[in-house]
């Protein structure tokens, strides 16, 4: 995992893409260390803000320094006060960014057909992943889902990369009506997938994990958990995860994730303290 850096990044461009804002910012240090699955932590609110914590965004891509200084891209959905502030920035403004952070998507050692499942802006980190997989000789099929058409992201880019893209929306305003995971079994069978990659809401990731397990293949999923530091020092972003030794522990999603093997994540116990977790007995004392 390359060393993360803190950069004052000038915004090169901000494009409205459906409900989202696609940022391209000049950040050569971060761009140099980029791998699909990495995220960045962006300071919000400017000088004298009351919002003291950074907000995390998966990287859509990076162009290393060459003729011009390296840039990175990420997609922002307005959610609360912090993301709203970011969406109000304009080209020429600067953002204080730390990255690249987290453990990226593990790439298969040999070419292996893969289905990529993106929920909402979750497609963003899957696009550079697809490019890498294809370049390494893997066949890739995209499934893009969202609540409604304006919250889809990356359909065009996905088509350009992987030819066939299946789109679903819960309300049927685009593509097939229904959950994106409903299209997953057929997609797995269609290309004889050996691995599934996914990024999007936790519920979707859980379903991807179940379906992949049913097809005896691995699913690498990029999770979202509230993060105070994003660099592994605060212990707020933990998930209950089964270790290689079979024992479950609270594991930091910002450093050991955000990409996890779906099978290892105890989805049903997220937000609870499973009694069999390492050190759970010590909690009982207090």
């Amino acid at each position, binding site marked *: 995992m390359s060393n*993360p850096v803190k950069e004052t990044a000038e915004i090169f461009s901000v494009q409205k893409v459906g409900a989202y804002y696609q940022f391209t910012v000049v950040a050569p240090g971060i761009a140099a260390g980029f791998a699909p699955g990495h995220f960045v932590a962006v300071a919000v609110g400017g000088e004298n803000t009351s919002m*003291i914590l950074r907000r995390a965004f998966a990287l859509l891509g990076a162009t290393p320094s060459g003729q011009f200084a390296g840039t990175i891209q990420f997609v922002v959905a307005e959610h609360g006060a912090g993301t709203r502030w970011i969406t109000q920035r304009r080209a020429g403004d600067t953002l204080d960014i730390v990255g690249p952070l987290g453990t990226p998507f593990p790439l298969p050692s040999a070419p292996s057909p893969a289905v990529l499942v993106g929920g909402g802006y979750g497609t963003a980190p899957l696009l550079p992943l697809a490019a890498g997989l294809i370049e390494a000789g893997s066949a890739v099929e995209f499934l893009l889902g969202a609540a409604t058409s304006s919250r889809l992201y990356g359909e065009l880019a996905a088509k350009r990369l992987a030819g066939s893209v299946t789109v679903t929306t819960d309300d049927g305003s685009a593509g097939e009506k229904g959950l994106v995971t409903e299209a997953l079994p057929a997609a797995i069978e269609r290309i004889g997938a050996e691995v599934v990659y996914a990024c999007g809401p936790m519920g979707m990731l859980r379903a991807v994990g179940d379906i992949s397990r049913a097809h005896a293949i691995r699913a690498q999923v990029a999770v979202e958990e*509230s993060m105070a530091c994003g660099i592994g*020092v605060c212990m707020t972003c*933990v998930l209950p995860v089964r270790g290689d030794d079979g024992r479950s522990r609270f594991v930091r999603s910002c450093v050991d994730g955000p990409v996890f093997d779906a099978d290892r994540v105890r989805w049903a116990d997220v937000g609870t303290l499973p009694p069999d977790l*390492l*050190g759970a007995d*010590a909690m009982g004392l207090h």
Partner: protein
Amino acid sequence: MADLTTTLGPLTLPNPVLTASGCAAAGRELHQFFDVARLGAVVTKSIMTRPRSGRATPRMAETPSGMLNSIGLQGPGIDSFLEHDLAWLAEHGARTVVSIAGGHTDEYVELARRLRGHPAVSMIEVNISCPNVESRGQVFACDAIASSRVIGAVRRAADPGQPVFAKLSPDVTDITLIARACADAGADGLSLINTLLGMAIDTDTMRPVLGGVTGGLSGPAIRPVAVRCVWQVRQALPHLPILGMGGIRSGLDALQFILAGASAVSVGTAVFGDPLAPVRVLAELDAELDARGFGSLADAVGFAHRDVAALV
């Protein structure tokens, strides 16, 4: 350039800026951003005897100029800490203050014993602001007797060469009473302050945000309370060394604590907003001391108390 060396009782540090327990893990992650050996010392996450899962998530909530956390002292236990974390810190030449926590007095004693003779351990910070099993969840630090019992036992059990600091909670009626009790019990100094007990309710789920319902409030929002605690304890116990913390984000913030009576400061929550905060605060504090003509950091400690009549 002001002489930045400072002392925390018998311990001399090259400069007065440390990390805060629980905001720097054991230094490894911050080392990616700056050499942690540049700091006065690294204060480690409170460690207990056995592995501890910590509380259910959500474990954090952002608040105006602050945050709430209900980690619940997650940690690998002393064995793993000694083998991995302390070894790493020693290897990287970082002065280390080991924070210890326990549910019973004898747990603290065992931890102190395990740390005896470790060359990498410069000091022990006793986190008595955690729930005390013996008095149904009340924290030790809220009870002068329970606090002095723990501090006395740790002082006796610990390596004489390792100063023992008691870390106090601000959530008490009179912090100077707890401070005096700890000093009388043999504490070499005090770490002021731990987080304030707070809570937030999610107005969508209409339930507490934190899995642990209540949590610790930290960051710039609590700085005025932290400075007041340092000031009061300095007034009551003018000769007891103080490690001050609570919302420090700049050199000027750190200077407030030094002028109030702290011989050193810890930078905690600010690290989440700026991983380079500790070394930036150190550089800013250095410049602010120079700008005010202080020949040394020591000259500035408690300077704000000059010709202020001892208050009622």
